[in-house]
């Protein structure tokens, strides 16, 4: 990893959002300190915002544009570069508005530059701390702890099903054991790096073949993945635990079984994974499900920060999980 990548990723939506929030919080705080009444506060915050907001957006825009250049520098050079860019943008902006004469009682140029550098320093310090809390070592450790684990329930039932095949259908038993071997190879592998979506789908199919062995006609799966980009990179074992949940909580408690629908499509540089299964409301086992969802959510956050999301909902006896993540190619 290059040293310069320690700079906050200014192409990231989450980072930009955090900068906006920090700066606006400082503006609001300043307005509170400067004002005596509520009406006062309103006036002060409008005055500050009229200069600060366009300036902030301009800075973010220029930083966004120059980020790829900044990452080529060393860490301290990158920081210096950010300060320089902010100060230059502020200075230029100051010239522009003082010529336009729209604003009465402008602060002096020096004061503006001083405030801008303090705010930049606060933001950079925040990202420095944030990065330490989420340093690669910490992230690695957490990802390792979060490695998806298969339910023992599934393992033992599966072995039991294979045993039942050995006497009469040895060929099927062979295939089943091969599928199990593949599945556990992935489960026991180091699962910290992103994998192609196609690979995850292949794994899910093997897993479902094993479940089909146990549940037979009770389990039907509908794949709607014609628009799926197989080369998209996703965290491994994002989909498999969801399917496992759908089988355990959705299909197994139903006498006649049901259909699990898996839909994958892309839209506007985002991948959507939607999984739905029938859901018996009388069923009392929810706890395991929440834990799996929390685990996946946390791994998504560690990989994609705010750019990925996981939502679940239930209505009319149908349970639905939707994952959205940024489209990253190999």
């Amino acid at each position, binding site marked *: 990893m290059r040293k310069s990548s320690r700079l906050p990723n200014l192409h990231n939506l989450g980072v930009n959002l955090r900068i906006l929030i920090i700066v606006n919080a400082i503006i609001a705080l300043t307005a509170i300190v400067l004002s005596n009444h509520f009406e006062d506060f309103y006036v002060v915050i409008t005055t500050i915002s009229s200069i600060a907001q366009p300036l902030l957006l301009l800075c973010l825009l220029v930083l966004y544009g120059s980020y790829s250049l900044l990452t080529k520098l060393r860490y301290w050079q990158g920081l210096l570069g950010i300060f320089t860019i902010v100060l230059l943008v502020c200075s230029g902006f100051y010239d522009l508005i003082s010529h336009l004469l729209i604003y009465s009682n402008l602060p002096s140029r020096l004061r503006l530059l001083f405030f801008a550098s303090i705010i930049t320093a606060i933001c950079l310090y925040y990202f420095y701390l944030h990065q330490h809390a989420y340093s690669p070592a910490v992230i690695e450790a957490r990802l390792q702890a979060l490695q998806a684990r298969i*339910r*023992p*329930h599934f*393992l*033992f*039932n599966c*072995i*039991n*099903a294979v*045993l*039942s*095949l050995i*006497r009469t259908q040895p060929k099927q038993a062979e295939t089943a054991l091969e599928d199990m071997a593949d599945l556990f190879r992935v489960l026991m592998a180091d699962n910290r790096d992103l994998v192609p979506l196609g690979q995850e789908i292949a794994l899910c199919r093997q897993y479902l073949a094993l479940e089909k*062995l*146990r*549940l*037979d006609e009770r389990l039907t799966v509908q794949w709607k993945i014609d628009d799926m980009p197989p080369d998209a990179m996703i965290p491994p074992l994002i989909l498999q635990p969801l399917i496992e949940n759908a089988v355990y909580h959705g299909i*197994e*408690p*139903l*006498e006649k079984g049901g259909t699990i629908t898996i839909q994958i499509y892309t839209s506007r540089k985002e991948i959507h994974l939607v999984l739905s299964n029938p859901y018996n409301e*009388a069923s*009392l086992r929810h706890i395991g499900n929440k834990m799996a969802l929390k685990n996946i959510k946390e791994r998504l956050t560690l990989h994609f920060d705010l750019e990925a999301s996981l939502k679940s909902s239930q209505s009319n006896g149908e349970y639905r999980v939707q994952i959205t993540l940024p489209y990253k190619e190999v």
Partner: protein
Amino acid sequence: MIKLLIADDEAPARKRLRDLLSDINEVTIVADAKNGQEALKLANENLPDIVLLDIRMPIMDGIETAQHLQKLAKPPAVIFTTAYDTYALQAFDLNAVDYLLKPIRFERLQTAIQKARALLPKQLEALVPLSPQRTHLSISERGRVLLIPVADVIYFRAELKYITVKTAEKEYLLEESLNHLEQEFGKIFIRLHRNCLVAQAYILGYEKRQLSHDAEGLLSSEKQWVALLKNIPDTVTVSRRQQHLIRSN
């Protein structure tokens, strides 16, 4: 010959048990069931000596099935089977309830069948918390078990010694306490009167009526609220203390 009944929702698991049992001489498999409800029906017909019960099954799980099986004239011995179920196994170990872990070993199965015996009352009691809400109520009728799905029950009414269970078709007598039923099914039934628990799903609405006498049989000229019920002409009087329930509905 020992008569044996298998209950498991997974076909391969049933087949595995059949394979293993075929190597034991003194047993014969009388039937196999896909869930607890079916197991009880088949147990009524075949009167097995031993029932091999999977814990996780749709419609009715193994734990609840074991409880209902006790109402047979001659309750069968129960051996639970499970792949993995931490809570249940703890309870089984504590109370010396027989169980087999899947994949099941031939020798274990053999020993379990040899020493199998009916559940003791204390063991049954220990199983209750493992299935906190029954899906069916059971009544012993001429040595057989009659199952009433809880979803079919319109109301429970406490009589002198029994509880009347009312469904759209029939009435049954149950030997339990109304308070206990309220605790167990409090989510689906509401207490409209001191002696009556009504299924919320079956309440059509409420009406104020002139009753010749109230629930205690005393003469009264006052108008009282009654609940109108789906599928049956009966009404249930709402006691004054519970009238706030009408407003919140």
